């Protein structure tokens, strides 16, 4: 097992190198002279030249990349052009916010998704199953930002579509004092329910497939109760593909919750990236992309390891 983890870790090195090359090339892929873009349109030729010299843009590309990589490895991703603060610092403060939202959203998604998926599979083709799947389809097709806006309308502003008094204490005001957890509630519901829909559908189809397997019939023929058949014999097998989806969801929450963060004014990684792109703050864009990619690689690694725990058939060699 340790051997396997070490090998998988080593395998991530080329992936990360590739990502770093891509991220580094961002600099060259944007149209125009990066120094000119950074300095702004009104800057004099001298300012641009100074900036170019300062950024080392006159050196050959491989020298620049080498420099970029070696400082990145030491945790130095350069400084933000706008704020002048180290990119690493900018990312660190935002990362914890995003991580927190991502963790809660994943927990919510897994909790609702697994339960709904299992119920749906066990009662397949009944009214319960059909209802759950319709809700899931709805959750799947509804854009996150729309659900987010709806939730803000209803719960933050108290504009419920029906005429019932809305309890004051439940109103989520983003600006209230000391209620960061309350700020979390709506974004977590927004992200979590979307994730739950995907997990529920995946769990249902995976469970249905497993329930039709021969070894489930064997379990029943042993005199095992239906509960044990579902939870011990079927679920463990059915979870194998679901774990991948959960990992992808979590990775997505970490990197891609841009719209949700914008709508709920959460100062997370997504906002940081969007703001940096808007302000042409290249070092920050590079830094966030690099960190988000790294997170994806780590999540994937964790998924693979949990795979191995769940499925003894996977040959580690």
């Amino acid at each position, binding site marked *: 097992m340790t051997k396997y983890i070490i090998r998988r870790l080593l395998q991530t090195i080329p992936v990360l190198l590739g990502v770093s090359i891509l991220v580094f090339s961002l600099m060259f892929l944007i149209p125009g002279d990066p120094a000119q873009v950074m300095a702004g349109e009104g800057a004099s030729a001298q300012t641009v030249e100074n900036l170019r010299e300062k950024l080392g843009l006159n050196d050959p590309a491989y020298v620049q990349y080498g420099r970029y990589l070696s400082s990145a490895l030491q945790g130095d991703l350069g400084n933000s052009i706008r704020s002048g603060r180290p990119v690493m610092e900018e990312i660190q403060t935002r990362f914890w916010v995003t991580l927190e939202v991502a963790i809660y959203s994943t927990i919510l998604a897994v909790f609702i998704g697994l339960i709904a998926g299992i119920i749906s599979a066990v009662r397949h083709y009944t009214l319960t199953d059909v209802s759950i799947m319709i809700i899931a389809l709805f959750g799947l097709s509804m854009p996150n930002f729309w659900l987010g806006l709806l939730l803000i309308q209803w719960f933050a502003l108290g504009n419920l579509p029906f005429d019932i008094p809305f309890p004051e204490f439940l109103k989520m005001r983003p600006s209230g004092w000391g209620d960061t957890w309350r700020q979390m509630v709506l974004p977590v519901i927004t992200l979590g329910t979307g994730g739950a829909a995907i997990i529920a559908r995946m769990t249902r189809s995976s469970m249905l497939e497993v329930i039709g397997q*021969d070894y489930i019939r*064997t379990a029943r023929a042993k*005199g095992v109760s239906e509960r044990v058949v579902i939870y011990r014999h079927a679920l*463990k097998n059915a979870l194998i593909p679901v774990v991948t989806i959960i990992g992808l969801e979590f990775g997505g929450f970490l990197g891609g919750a841009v719209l949700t963060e914008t709508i709920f004014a959460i100062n997370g990684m997504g906002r940081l990236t969007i703001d940096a792109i808007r302000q042409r703050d290249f070092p920050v864009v590079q830094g966030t992309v690099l960190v988000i990619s790294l997170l994806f690689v780590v999540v994937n690694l964790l998924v693979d390891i949990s795979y191995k725990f769940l*499925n*003894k*058939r996977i040959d580690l060699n």
Partner: protein
Amino acid sequence: MNEMENILVVNNLQTTFKTDAGDIRAVDGVSFTVPKGKTIGIVGESGSGKSITSLTILRLLASNGRVNGGEVLFKGKDLLKLPEKAMREIRGNQISMIFQEPMTSLNPVYTVGQQIGETIQIHKKVGKKEAIQQSIEMLKLVGIPSPEKRVKQYPHELSGGMRQRVMIAMALACDPEILIADEPTTALDVTIQAQILELIKDLQNRLGMSVIMITHDLGVVAETCDYVAVMYAGQVVEYSDVRSLFKNPKHPYTLGLLNSLPRHDIEQEKLIPIKGMVPSPHEMPVGCRFAPRCPVATELCHNKMPQLLNTNDSNAEQIRCWMFSDEWDGDSEVTLYGEKRTIKG
């Protein structure tokens, strides 16, 4: 035969499946008895309802399946009327089953020991440690070398033959009175097939259980069974002891089956396959289900379904064929697969 000796009596079992293309009467008139300590064979072509018969006995049908009628009397009580909980206490404990596909019948995510141990834990109410200990004993019993090592392995680490041995160990762990073996060797290599059959026979002698051996292979029947029920299109068409079945087959279908097989014990001029095809489950003939293929079918055969009745010779022998009834409307002498036969009628 004394009624008390029969551990299982199946009477006119009927099982249907709801499908999009209409109802399928997969089992429609299956009767046989299992004498204590004996092996009875259920033989028939693929799709004749052998597996569904055994799954109906244990009440393990897929959710679209329904038992429409009949009785399954296990030691006198009708299993079809038992509450689910009581049924669970019988499964794997008093009546066990092994399946055709050893490769997929074991749960891939649990060890051999966990899977055998589970049966032991449920039915014998012992702890985990004791269950694993007993699993090792069972593995020894079914002839698996180094059982202490095997007990900790996962199914994918075992060959097909080994896995079938594990299935047998699991099935026999609680000392069942009946073992249902649904084509236990069909998926295995020929050499392994013989070993597994030998093992089942040997364990039966040692443990004294009854065996229901399901197979499409008359060779397996000849080797292992005391009695045999021949199935055709969801029905038992002939039930008798093995010796008379091979020596003196009565039903035209049985005769056809035997004639389409190479045999060493009698002289055969040539193999004559049964012409035609098994009827589709959606369009069963109204009369005798074998009538479209039967060389001697009459008006009566096509219009009215024959019942499974005791023959005049012996009440251990049952035939579903108009030829053996007083109502027979055909010739009193017929030729079936090259064999002349006089009908008493």
